[in-house]
């Protein structure tokens, strides 16, 4: 079953200058998945999430979330989604506990249930010791964790995370990834945008690479890397490298050979047999260390657009 269906979404801003933010994006996201939208800033990821969450009106096309058309039934959609936006949008006049409790009230929980749910989430997200702090007193990582707790407090079916780890330190990022995985394990469908390749690679089961308001390619991370990631890089350390390069001549899967200080750097075809064949040829030269750099989503993006994700 599809949790999110996006069909030919178009978003144009009249300007000036006129901008086409989305240029016909289509996605079909199965329930229970962690799905990623990967692309550089300005690609259209946030606009897509905005339309799915009823905060942005589409110029064309439609989005159906949990079976409800966003344009026709925004209230039904809002009742079934949780949203963590890029910026910290916690209610600054209220404590962390109140942020969670009142959010539950906005979703119709009675006062006792809302209080109980807030307490439960404070414990689960390990923020109980800051329950009575104001949002302004929290670090970015902690505030983002509160936002995540708030977004799931009303038990949504689909969770939208817009650049959830932007600006977080590595430790907070890993902690957030763990939380996201645990939420998926509970049956939530999670749609996240990111411009971090590692995040898309580590966390998502499927992803769409988006650029200039269009989906360039869609699939599992492995599939995308295999089909569009290009080459595997192999760094070797050899105790006696002389003649090693010559020994590789005629090996079909080797595209390029560069001598390094301690050995050779090879560029290989992404074929599954290439590695074994090359290692066998290098073994006589005192092979000490091998580092394999697999194709990454970064190389996928570069091969599709000729640009770096961070440009």
């Amino acid at each position: 079953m599809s949790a999110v269906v996006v069909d030919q979404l178009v978003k144009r801003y009249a300007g000036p200058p006129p901008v086409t933010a989305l240029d016909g994006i289509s996605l079909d996201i199965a329930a229970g998945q962690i799905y990623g939208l990967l692309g550089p800033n300005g690609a259209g990821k946030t606009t897509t999430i905005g339309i799915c969450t009823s905060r942005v009106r589409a110029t064309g096309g439609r989005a159906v979330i949990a079976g409800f058309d966003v344009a026709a039934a925004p209230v039904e959609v809002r009742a079934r989604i949780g949203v963590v936006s890029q910026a910290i949008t916690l209610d600054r006049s209220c404590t962390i506990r109140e942020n969670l409790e009142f959010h539950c009230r906005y979703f119709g929980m009675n006062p006792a249930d809302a209080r109980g749910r807030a307490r439960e989430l404070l414990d689960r997200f390990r923020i109980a010791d800051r329950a009575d702090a104001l949002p302004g007193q929290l670090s970015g990582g902690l505030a983002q964790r509160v936002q995540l707790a708030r977004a799931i407090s009303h038990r949504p079916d689909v969770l939208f995370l817009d650049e959830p780890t932007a600006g977080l330190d590595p430790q907070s990022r890993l902690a957030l990834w763990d939380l996201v995985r645990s939420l998926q394990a509970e049956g939530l469908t999670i749609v996240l945008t990111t411009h971090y390749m590692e995040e898309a690679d580590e966390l998502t089961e499927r992803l769409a690479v988006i650029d200039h308001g269009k989906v360039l390619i869609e699939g599992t991370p492995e599939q995308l890397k295999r089909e569009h990631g290009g080459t595997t890089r192999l760094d070797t350390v050899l105790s006696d490298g002389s003649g090693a390069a010559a020994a590789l001549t005629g090996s079909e899967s080797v595209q390029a050979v560069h001598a390094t200080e301690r050995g050779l750097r090879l560029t290989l075809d992404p074929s599954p047999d290439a590695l074994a064949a090359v290692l066998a040829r290098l073994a006589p030269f005192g092979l000490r260390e091998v580092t394999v750099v697999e194709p990454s989503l970064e190389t996928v993006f570069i091969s599709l657009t000729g640009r770096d994700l961070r440009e």
Partner: protein
Amino acid sequence: MNKVPPVMAVVRGLWRRDLAVLRREGVAFALRTVMNPLLVVFVFTYVLPKSGQGFQTAGATSFATVLTPGLIAVAMIFTGVAAVALPLSVELGATREIEDRILAPAPLHTIPLARIAFGAVQAILSGALVFPIVTLLPATPVDVHVASWPLLVAMLLLAGWTSAALGLFLGTVVKPAQIGLLFALVLTPITFLGCVYYPWASLQPIRWLQIGVLINPLVYMSEGLRTALTANVPHLPVAVSVTALAGLGVLFTGLGVRTFRRRVID
């Protein structure tokens, strides 16, 4: 599965939140409300008469009697506008704090309408806070009696609603950085030209002004409360005050909900 809660459940949640925030600044709220009428009453109806410089208004009514409904009306419009416009302007601004409430499972207009209702209650509360000050403090006699309770209640409700609705409209169009300007360019002229210190009828010699101030909602609030509290002071016909306030209330509510929608939906 039906997951959409009744709209009133969402509204109760919104009010519960606003109440928690208001309670935290309860003392500040009371001081803000009371300070202006306290000083006006003290200077104009205590210091000036005692020092022999008091105004004498037309007829037998004292200036303190003229002031009573006017100062209640000013307190209400200040509170109503401030209670809605100030927080809303910030929440719609850079912090986007309003976002969590926009994502609540209720029609979008629920949020501004709930805010108006809450602001109206605060406006009425501030009117009640001001009442003992303007009636008990003056050195000159204050001739106040409730001509008709239903009329007084209706005037308070209409005045509270219109003030809060004006606050909604202003809060959705004014950026946080322009709040100072809001007070200087909107609330101050409204106050001085709102028939607070003089009844509308007394503007007769300055006909252009008498016509001009009719766009000011505070005129109808002051005059309407005069009808309800100090019937001896000349005042606009009650039908005019009620109709005008209701009309302005509808206008500001409609405009405010529209600009709110524009601000939150891209």
